[in-house]
């Protein structure tokens, strides 16, 4: 079901994220998805996340659909030119994928094939425009598509805590003008900053699903502060992770922080997007603790 319809019906959207395996044996990934599925509206399938080569997102989405699990097909511009992107979007329509997350994608030099050719024939904005064009029954070159055109719910990402914020808002507005209908955000750890962000984007009238990344330890928090764009884990949270090493190691501290953040952020937005980065089994506990239940 398209997010836009769910949001229109006043539902708070809960999503999680799944990275396909490096190989073609998807049993473990499917199991992870099945554990999370009862608690969420949909599961995002990443596209060679962080430029690390993995099984294709489209195939993983299809495998989820076969288990009656709703996928969100993430599409980046790093690995495919406009022909390949259009083919894959049409293939997604064939499989009955409703929701897309359209991204520019990380640079190839960040991943495990640093010597690869970075494509970036399109970017998140022109990719959105491309999907809109397909929905209008034409390809990017203006040729008419055979039969009924596809229809998707198109999402994109935004970094609410980035500094400076203005370029983010500029791009967000540009994405909306190009056809974006929902946003999933970069991980948020600062409730105040997110509140300010939401006040500024209210006028756009587009649903925002706040991003949550489970903190696995103080090292991860510090690493993200130094290296990941738009993320700032406040010192208090780092201290909290340092306090009880055993509790942090078992994941309990991360779970508690994530649940608390969700509780605080929920009133400000229209959904939550969990990025467990391998800790998929913790998702049900986080959601239970935060007191939100899925409404499908």
């Amino acid at each position, binding site marked *: 079901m398209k997010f836009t319809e769910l949001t229109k019906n006043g539902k708070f959207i809960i999503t999680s994220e799944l990275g396909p395996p490096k190989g073609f044996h998807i049993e473990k990934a499917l199991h992870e998805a099945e554990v999370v599925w009862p608690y969420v509206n949909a599961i995002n399938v990443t596209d060679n996340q962080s430029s690390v080569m993995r099984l294709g997102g489209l195939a993983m989405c299809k495998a989820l659909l076969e288990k009656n699990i709703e996928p969100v097909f993430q599409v980046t511009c790093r690995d495919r030119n*406009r022909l390949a992107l259009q083919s894959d979007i049409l293939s997604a329509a064939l499989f009955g994928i409703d929701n897309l997350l359209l991204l520019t994608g990380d640079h190839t030099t960040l991943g495990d094939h640093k010597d690869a050719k*970075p494509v970036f024939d399109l970017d998140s904005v022109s990719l959105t425009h491309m999907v809109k064009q397909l929905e209008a029954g034409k390809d990017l070159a203006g040729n008419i598509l055979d039969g009924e055109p596809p229809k998707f719910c198109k999402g994109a990402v935004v970094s609410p805590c980035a500094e400076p914020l203005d370029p983010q808002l500029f791009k967000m507005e540009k994405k909306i003008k190009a056809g974006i209908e929902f946003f999933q955000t970069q991980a948020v750890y600062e409730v105040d900053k997110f509140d300010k962000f939401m006040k500024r984007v209210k006028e756009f009238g587009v649903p925002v699903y706040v991003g949550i990344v489970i903190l696995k330890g103080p090292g991860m928090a510090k690493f993200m502060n130094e290296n990941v764009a738009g993320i700032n884990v406040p010192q208090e949270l780092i201290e909290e992770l340092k306090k009880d090493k055993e509790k942090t190691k078992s994941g309990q501290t991360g779970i508690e922080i994530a649940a608390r953040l969700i509780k605080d952020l929920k009133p400000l937005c229209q959904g939550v997007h969990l990025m467990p980065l391998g800790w998929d089994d913790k998702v049900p506990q986080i959601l239970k603790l935060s007191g939100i239940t899925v409404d499908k």
Partner: protein
Amino acid sequence: MLITQLKKKEEILPFLKAKTLLVACFGCKEVFFPEKEYQNIKEEFKKLYPDLSGEIVLDYLCNEDYTAKRLELYRQEIEKAETMVVFACGVGVQTLAGLLASKTVLAGCDTFYLPGFSGFTPSSYDCEQCGECRLSSTAGICPVTACSKGLLNGPCGGAKNGKCEVSKIKECGWENIMNKITTTGKVAEKLKESVSIRDYKKSQ
């Protein structure tokens, strides 16, 4: 604009023999040539092979007609030589190889693309000759070359502390653009409305 860099000695040495002629092109504004390094390596080669055929120094090797005439002056040396190691840009090497089809012509240099327009002195500004100049709408900063992904529709969101996601020392071209146009001005409004898609036909 091009820059040429001498190949590693180890790469050239196996080709050197008595009947080898060195050809160096020292003259054009398009190519930055490592003249000093060339002189050094030449002296080394001469020591190793006291009977090298010799050396020809030319300019504008890439100009075929001009070079054909100039080669006449060195006909004897060329006739004696079997191989020629050419220290010039890729175009120069190809020109000489075309003119001297019976000789083995080898490249002594690697050729790199260098920022700056052809015919100008080296510059820190880079142009990829995309054929659809966007500078008027991007505050004079080229998004094709100043952004690591060549993005045309705004920053990717990967920048941290003003630096591009690919390197902590490379500035984010789009953050520089956004800083210069200010996100609220008229220019930004126009940029916000448009969806830019590159036409690769124009740069092929």
